[in-house]
């Protein structure tokens, strides 16, 4: 699979286009499955970049910022990364790029105290940009000693190149941010995990890393799903943990998140933009695009040349392995979206009966037995499903990928997991 993956990545690699001035943005009032957000603006309000327009409720309180300056047009429902329609605040961009706070604090990054650091990354709404949008301040808000910071730039999803492109473009800034985070949080060691196939990137990193004695570049095989936190920690630090890496004094951050922290510390800039890979054979041009959160995917696709002349296509938000197919291109880009993939549609091949070859068992990174889980799910044997620890499934889709019988085992495991969760409630 590895060679195929590298070929798929070549499509969009190192091509960065700026699309920072969309006419409208639709900022999703959601985070993952959580749509519990208080709206703080109303139709007709003028907002600047960084104006807090909504606030997530509950334990993961994170502000949602306006990503352009202009007038609030109202609330409309647009497609979210999960495939659901969610409420979005529509803002008409006046193109003036007015920031709420214009580089007020020019303090050196490493001069932040831990409290100021936490406050800044909370106020600027920094969340994990690797796909889960988990609030970053929660990770750092700990009294436990942090020994190692692992920076995830391995990006194993077959088509995605946004992280490696960002790291290549902003190498110095990212190293500076890592150094500052280490100093503020008294972290002794940092590891930047990069795909070993990215030789040019590794060379560039090594050129800059000389002065940062405690930062190490580790080239890892980009075998899927190396990006999975548990596997990444195992590969870089050779340790296992039970629930979160912090148990072993480790924090894992995506490289895009580190860059967002850099902008937050350096310029007090809230999380308003990110790099997204637009790729796949369904598009005329494949590239990485720097865009505002809330930009519609269809506007970006139009800007980069549009679709190939193919009758049926699939549009996927996320990635080829873990992403979701969407019914239209009216996808409002949220921090979770790292890739928009458009592929010509191929009809599903007929699923054959399971021959119990065990390839899914060999491939499963979570060490599950997909064959038995699927059988137990057919029999609705919840006790057996619990014994088989179905809850450990990370939904990577390798079982479905490898299955020679064309069975979509991941879906069955998802349903089995849901069944167990419902039983647990």
């Amino acid at each position, binding site marked *: *699979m590895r060679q195929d993956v590298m070929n798929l990545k070549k499509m969009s690699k190192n091509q960065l286009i700026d699309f920072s001035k969309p006419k409208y943005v639709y900022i999703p009032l959601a985070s993952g499955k959580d749509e519990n957000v208080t709206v703080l603006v109303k139709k007709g309000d003028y907002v600047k970049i960084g104006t807090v327009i909504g606030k997530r409720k509950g334990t993961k309180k994170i502000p949602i910022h306006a990503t352009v300056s202009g007038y609030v047009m109202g609330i409309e429902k647009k497609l979210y990364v999960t495939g659901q329609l969610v409420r979005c605040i529509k803002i008409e961009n006046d193109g003036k790029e007015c920031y709420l706070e214009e580089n007020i604090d020019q303090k050196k990054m490493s001069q932040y105290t831990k409290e100021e650091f936490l406050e800044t990354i909370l106020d600027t709404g920094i969340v994990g940009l690797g796909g889960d949008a988990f609030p970053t301040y929660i990770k750092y808000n700990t009294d436990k000693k942090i020994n190692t910071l692992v920076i995830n730039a391995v990006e194993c999803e*077959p088509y995605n190149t946004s992280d490696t492109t960002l790291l290549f473009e902003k190498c110095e800034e990212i190293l500076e941010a890592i150094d500052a985070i280490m100093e503020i949080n008294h972290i002794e060691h940092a590891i930047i995990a990069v795909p070993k196939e990215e030789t040019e990137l590794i060379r560039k990193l090594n050129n800059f890393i000389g002065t940062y004695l405690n930062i190490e570049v580790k080239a890892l095989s980009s075998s899927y799903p190396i990006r999975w936190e548990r596997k990444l920690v195992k590969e870089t630090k050779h340790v296992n943990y039970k629930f979160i890496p912090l148990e072993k004094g480790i924090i894992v951050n995506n490289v895009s998140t580190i860059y967002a922290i850099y902008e937050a510390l350096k310029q007090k800039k809230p999380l308003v933009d990110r790099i997204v890979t637009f790729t796949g054979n369904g598009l005329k041009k494949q590239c990485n695009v720097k865009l505002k959160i809330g930009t519609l995917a*269809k506007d970006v696709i139009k800007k980069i040349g549009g*679709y190939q002349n193919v009758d*049926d*296509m*699939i*549009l*996927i938000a996320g990635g*080829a*392995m*873990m*992403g*979701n*197919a*969407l*019914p*239209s*291109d*009216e996808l409002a880009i949220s921090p979770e979206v790292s890739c928009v*993939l458009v*592929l010509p*549609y191929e009809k*599903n*091949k*007929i699923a*054959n*009966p399971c*021959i*119990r*070859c*065990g*390839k899914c*068992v060999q491939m499963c990174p979570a*060490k*599950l*037995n997909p*064959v*038995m889980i699927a059988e137990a799910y057919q029999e609705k044997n919840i006790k*057996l499903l619990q*014994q*088989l*620890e179905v809850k*450990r499934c990370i939904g990577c*889709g*390798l079982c*479905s*990928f*490898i*299955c*020679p*019988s*064309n069975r*979509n085992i*991941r*879906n069955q495991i998802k349903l089995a997991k849901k069944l167990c969760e419902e039983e647990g409630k």
Partner: protein
Amino acid sequence: MKAFVLKDGPFLKSKQKVSHIELTWLYSLGILFLFAWTKNGIYPFLNHNMSLKEMLLPFFLLGITFIISTITFFTTKKIKHDRIYLFEIIHLIVSSLILVLLLPIQVPIYVLIFGSVIMAILECFDKIKKYMNPIVISILIVIMGTSILTSTPNIYYNAYEQKNLEAISMPSLIDHNHLVGYQQLVQPYGKIKNFAIGNVPGALGATSIILLSIIFLYLVYKKNIKWEITLTYLFTIFIMSSFIGNLSHFGYWYPIYQILSGGVMFVAIVLATDNISTPVTPIGKILYGLGLGILTILFRYFTPYYEAALLSVLLMSFLNSILDRIGSIARFHFEKSIPFFLSLWVLMIGISVFIGTKY
């Protein structure tokens, strides 16, 4: 607004298909069949021991098996109103090949037809297949049910062997009384290397250990075999018979003979690794191989049945689900599988010592 097709992910698929797996097996067994034909058809023909018709006997046997099993399979599927998949047809050819390769050259045609019918019917029932390999069942039924091994003299001999080898009674050919010496077990067929080459009488495809080993390596390379079962099974037999051989003051040849004879290699590579009736978890596969080895030794020394390896496969496949459950739990809690390993190791050593000293 442009509409897109909705489909469940993942959106990438590996290129390997079930039919590719079946075809790999077909090529491998095809080579084995060609060897069987050379040994039992071409070689005796060139040495003027048989007619052209007799030379083509292996093909005739294969043709009969395939035709009968196909007719039975399609009829049973039609009665059951089941869909027929392409890979099932290739699988049927593979199964027909295995059935022919496991039977003696002199097998009566009615026995072959009987076996083909049973095998093809069982191939139509997925739930039965999970707990018993249709080929193993059909072979055991025809061999044990018709007593052909004991009632037909020199059934494993081809025309050349019938002329050149001394008549040897069945019990010493695939001897269940294994505590006899080199003179009785090996010398009638020359040296132990003849077992490796395949220059000994036996089931059509089960004699050439070298060829079987090459096929095993090819299947491992193609990732189409549950190799853990093969290796554990052979390892268990080797260790147990080494104990027995040492305690009985036989030479180093004894454990090697145990592996090279009685179709153990064929069973270890072809039948014991059958996908459907064997475990899928690594620990499950290892426990399966260990159990298989212990049962084979038990059947060889304590029962009058010649089909020790086949009987072991049948019994172990009944435990398929249990072994997989142990294997699945052991992936997270390895310590829970330790009692099973310990029990099997104690059994291995205990049985070997008992046979070597008291039997």
